[in-house]
């Protein structure tokens, strides 16, 4: 049995982040003001129409759509770390599970908003539920994203139940209403055997359920593109290509979050170099798989050079999007893979930098998937203004695209201020098992 003092230390360490300090206030204030500015841009878009964006009748999907794909992609990491690694018994990932779930929930929930920002008539959103057609990938997407948000929320909440009980008992400087909420949400948790059993069973079922649903959200998102006949999108590997790409960006997001949580909340004892090392290896693994899919995606059509594939690939390899394409491939994928092969590079700070590079690369990778294809339809683009032929995002568009990221940061920060981001109950449990 673990001695009580150690349990108390773990508890107080992990509850340490739950307090509102000055730096939190400044950070939230900054996020709040930024969000306000971005919302102003969105209001402008609502009143004037999508004309305020750089979109046109040919490139009719732009930054918003690539942003949406990026958000859905990043949210997939919850499934990989909590479910796949959890079910396969990789114990090292347990302290990271909650971080991954928070990221999953935040990104998935915000992805829904991103897609609304792309709509010409957001006021008619309900039409999707009133007149929804089961044949449309958008309806599938809305279904699975909603499902994934719900399941991710449960997946975050259920393992949290024992911790909520701890929160309600151990946190002393919180207002009574907050304590009450903890109490209600902890569902009379008392750690009885039956409760433990129900908790384990529910967590396990969720872990199994979330795998197909998570696969579905990104596969369906890839089908938004793959279901059209356009060069660059008309590909059968789009589903797995997107899913593996998602693991890359999600892993990078988790690494970045790990770094900042660890630093700001003094969790060096719980998120250790060992965890970074493991995450580094995981990132190499998923990046290699993604690289393999990239090879398939570009080499197979590149070998044949069919008329419209050739136009598309030339544009990527040596044409207008070449710089972005090669930057993404080299700095977002190849160099990170090479660097992470060295143990020295799998330390927190280098990992943070690599993680940021990979995440930025992942964002531009989505841009590369969406825009060049739209700029080269089968029939020539003629008799329209120049800005219909070449897409350049406008300032308003960029601001509206930043808003979801701010929202994600707000959610991630807020959640870390109300719940322990390292599972207390599980940490103690694991230590007990060791003894």
């Amino acid at each position, binding site marked *: 049995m673990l001695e009580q003092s150690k349990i108390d230390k773990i508890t107080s360490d992990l509850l340490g982040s739950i307090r509102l300090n000055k730096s939190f206030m400044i950070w939230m204030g900054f996020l709040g003001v930024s969000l306000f500015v971005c919302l102003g841009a969105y209001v402008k878009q609502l009143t004037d129409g999508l004309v305020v964006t750089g979109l046109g009748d040919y490139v009719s999907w732009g930054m918003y759509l690539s942003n949406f794909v990026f958000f859905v992609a990043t949210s997939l990491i919850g499934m990989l770390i909590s479910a796949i690694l959890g079910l396969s018994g990789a114990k090292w990932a347990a302290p990271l599970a909650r971080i991954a779930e928070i990221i999953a929930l935040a990104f998935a929930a915000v992805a829904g908003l991103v897609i609304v920002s792309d709509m010409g008539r957001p006021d008619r959103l309900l039409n999707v539920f009133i007149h929804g057609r089961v044949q449309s990938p958008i309806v599938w997407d809305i279904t699975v994203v909603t499902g994934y948000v719900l399941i991710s929320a*449960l997946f975050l909440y259920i393992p949290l139940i024992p911790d909520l009980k701890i929160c309600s008992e151990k946190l002393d400087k919180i207002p009574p209403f907050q304590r009450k909420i903890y109490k209600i949400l902890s569902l*009379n*948790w008392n750690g009885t055997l039956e*409760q433990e059993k129900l908790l384990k069973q529910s967590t396990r079922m969720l872990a199994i359920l979330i795998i197909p*649903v998570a696969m579905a959200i990104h596969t369906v998102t890839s089908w938004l593109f793959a279901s059209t006949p356009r060069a660059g999108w008309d590909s059968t590997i789009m589903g797995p290509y997107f899913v593996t790409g998602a693991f890359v960006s999600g892993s990078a997001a988790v690494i970045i979050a790990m770094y900042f949580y660890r630093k700001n909340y003094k969790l060096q004892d719980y998120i250790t170099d060992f965890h970074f090392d493991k995450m580094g290896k995981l990132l190499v693994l998923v990046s290699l798989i993604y690289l393999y899919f990239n090879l398939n995606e570009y080499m197979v059509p590149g070998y044949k050079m069919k008329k419209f594939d050739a136009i598309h690939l030339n544009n990527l390899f040596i044409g207008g999007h070449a710089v972005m394409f090669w930057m993404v491939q080299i700095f977002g994928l190849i160099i990170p893979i090479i660097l992470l092969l060295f143990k020295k590079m799998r330390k927190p700070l280098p990992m943070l930098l690599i993680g940021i590079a990979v995440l930025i690369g992942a964002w531009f990778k989505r841009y590369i998937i969406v825009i060049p294809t739209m700029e080269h339809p089968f029939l020539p683009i003629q008799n329209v203004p120049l800005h219909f032929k070449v897409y350049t995002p406008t300032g308003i568009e960029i601001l509206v695209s930043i808003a979801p990221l701010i929202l994600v940061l707000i959610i991630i920060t807020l959640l870390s201020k109300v719940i322990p981001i390292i599972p207390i109950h599980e940490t103690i449990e694991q230590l007990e098992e060791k003894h």
Partner: protein
Amino acid sequence: MYRIKFKIAIILGFTGLINFQSFAQNNWDVPADKKSKNSNIEFNSGTAKEGEGIYNTNCKSCHGDIGKNNSLQSLKPVPPDLSSAQSKALLDGELFHILNVGRGLMPSFKEVLPESDRWKVIAYMRSYDKDYVQIISKTDPAKANLVKIKMVFDSINSKLNVEVVANEKAGIVKLKNAEIALFVTRHFGKMQLDKTLRTDNNGNASFDFPKDLPGDKVGNVELIVRVNDEIYGEIESISKFKIAVPTDKPSLTEKRAMWNVLAKAPIWLILLYLSGVLLATGVILYIIYNLYKLSKSNNNLKN
């Protein structure tokens, strides 16, 4: 609605086969019987005025203002000014034929303008020719309603036999050598079947009726015979026959398809979608039920 403006000069030929190098202005090959055709409308200042309006809408964009030699020079061949000597030299029948059939860059006006309008354009043209003396056709429009057109379908040879007679007081007159054409009514206009014929000495003409012509659901078609006789003028007779191919194609939206409405979505897709949603919902509900049990389990212990 059927007005056409030819503001843009480039008007292309119908056949696309005539080499425009061979275009010389005066070599319109007008058949003799067409040449001799004359208007039954008197060319006077009134009809010329009406013709001017029609001319301005349909002809001016290429031929320019008559007498001002401002026709569209970029066209090959250049459309002549219609007061030019070569135009004046043409007979009424020849001009009428040119208007009817068109050639090269000039379109046909036969189905665009009614016959009277086509003559009025010529009336307007002739108003620029002081030496012109009109030969009025012998046509008496009042006599048109004396004409009876009888259509009989010969199903063995797939022929539509037409007899054209006029019930004159003096007795029945058979319309000889009258121009006669057969049309079928379609959604957007009349479609000519077989060629334009001339009636024989007994006032008869026989049209080949296509065996593959689609009719309505039971094979009905509305046929129009148009007779153009020098004396009796233009007479049309419409009648329905049940001689075409019955056509009852199903609605294009009948079958289930990916593009059809929700009610006609592919069944496998509906099943796939519903089973996925139901399965996931089921599991989620079960988990929520577990949570309910979890919250109660503690109470039970205490009680």
